[in-house]
């Protein structure tokens, strides 16, 4: 009957436009961030997996706690920025304050995952795969750090489209690592 084709057509209509990804740029301005990348890439990002595993369980738990708090802080900052970039008149001060939280913490991420801080030690969303693929993990943490720097640079300016574009890249770098290395964790 006619319904079938109509249902199919309507699905297409419904699925046109609209973005859920908090930082996704609505236009082609994404290229701006792309252009500014080489400059930010030039900033040396030296992230290495710390070789030393914590000596005591207490020490391990302390690192895990710090890691958890830091990640939660990142989440809060991302949400605050997400709301601003979605609004018609983003508050640049809010964005900058949250960007600072992110750029401050980003260089520390890789160092907060020493061996011996996995789910066998305490409650954590960190998957054991992190320590099975240390190079890939560190590379992803490095990508995040670079994206954070690029975003920090964009947030320093007032080009909202550039901010949106680099925020979307930043979100992608979070997601790339989380999809692979984070397990679901209930508070």
């Amino acid at each position: 009957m006619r319904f079938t084709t109509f249902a199919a057509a309507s699905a297409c209509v419904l699925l046109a436009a609209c973005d859920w990804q908090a930082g996704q740029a609505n236009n082609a301005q994404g290229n701006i961030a792309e252009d500014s990348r080489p400059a930010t890439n030039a900033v040396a990002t030296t992230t290495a997996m710390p070789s030393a595993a914590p000596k005591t369980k207490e020490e391990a738990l302390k690192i895990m706690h710090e890691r958890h708090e830091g990640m939660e802080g990142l989440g809060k900052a991302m949400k605050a920025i997400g709301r601003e970039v979605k609004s018609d008149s983003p508050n640049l001060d809010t964005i900058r304050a949250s960007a600072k939280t992110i750029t401050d913490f980003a260089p520390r991420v890789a160092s907060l995952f020493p061996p011996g801080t996995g789910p066998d030690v305490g409650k954590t969303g960190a998957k054991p795969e992190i320590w099975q693929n240390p190079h890939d993990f560190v590379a992803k943490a490095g990508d995040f750090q670079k994206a954070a720097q690029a975003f920090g640079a964009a947030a320093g300016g007032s080009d909202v489209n550039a901010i949106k574009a680099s925020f979307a890249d930043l979100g992608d770098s979070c997601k790339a690592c989380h999809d692979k290395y984070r397990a679901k964790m209930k508070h």
Partner: protein
Amino acid sequence: MPRQISREDETLSGEARAQPVWDLPVRLFHWVLAGLIGFSWWSVKFHHTDWHIWSGCAILTLLIFRILWGFAGSSTARFASFVRGPRALRDYWRGSWSGIGHNPLGALSVLLLLAAVAVQVGLGLISEDEDGLYMGPLAVLVSTDTADKARDLHELWFNILLGVIALHLLAILYYRLRGRGLTWPMITGKARVAPDDERMRPGKWWAALLCLAAGIAITRWIIAGAPPFGS
């Protein structure tokens, strides 16, 4: 209830004619909804949150469509025809109810399923993910705390939804074991009915189109940020 089924079977055994009981929009609604609920689960489980949100919006459209079709559809699709009082339930329990479409008990199950899905969609609309990467279409209308709580509830409510779906499937299995298949009629739209039962009055195809168009329009309005398009 068991007596009711066997009584009906006796009546039906002599009559092989299958009559329309479910119109195409009802069947499409049912199977697309089932598919989208599965897809919603899969997509978010495997980190395709954007697809998950789209799927939720499509389900919202379906729900709006189904509610409208419940007023404008064929006789068995209309709420007025299947939402009945406790007396019909009692009659059904005693086996003295006869008719096509949702039986009085099944009608309760339909309302329960629709409500459970509606709650889940509503929670999803105002949810945001824990990393601040995705926001439901209406999450900007609530605070970050509320959006986070809504996500927790959204995850929790999924278990309720699964429970209601399990009940639905168990009921189908129960009827199956009692010799009454419900799945095939939901595919073909036809079932053998008692000779003295009322026939289904089909809906108008253009009414279905209008309901669907309204469903899409209202969904678009909601995902655009509702009242005055956002905060």
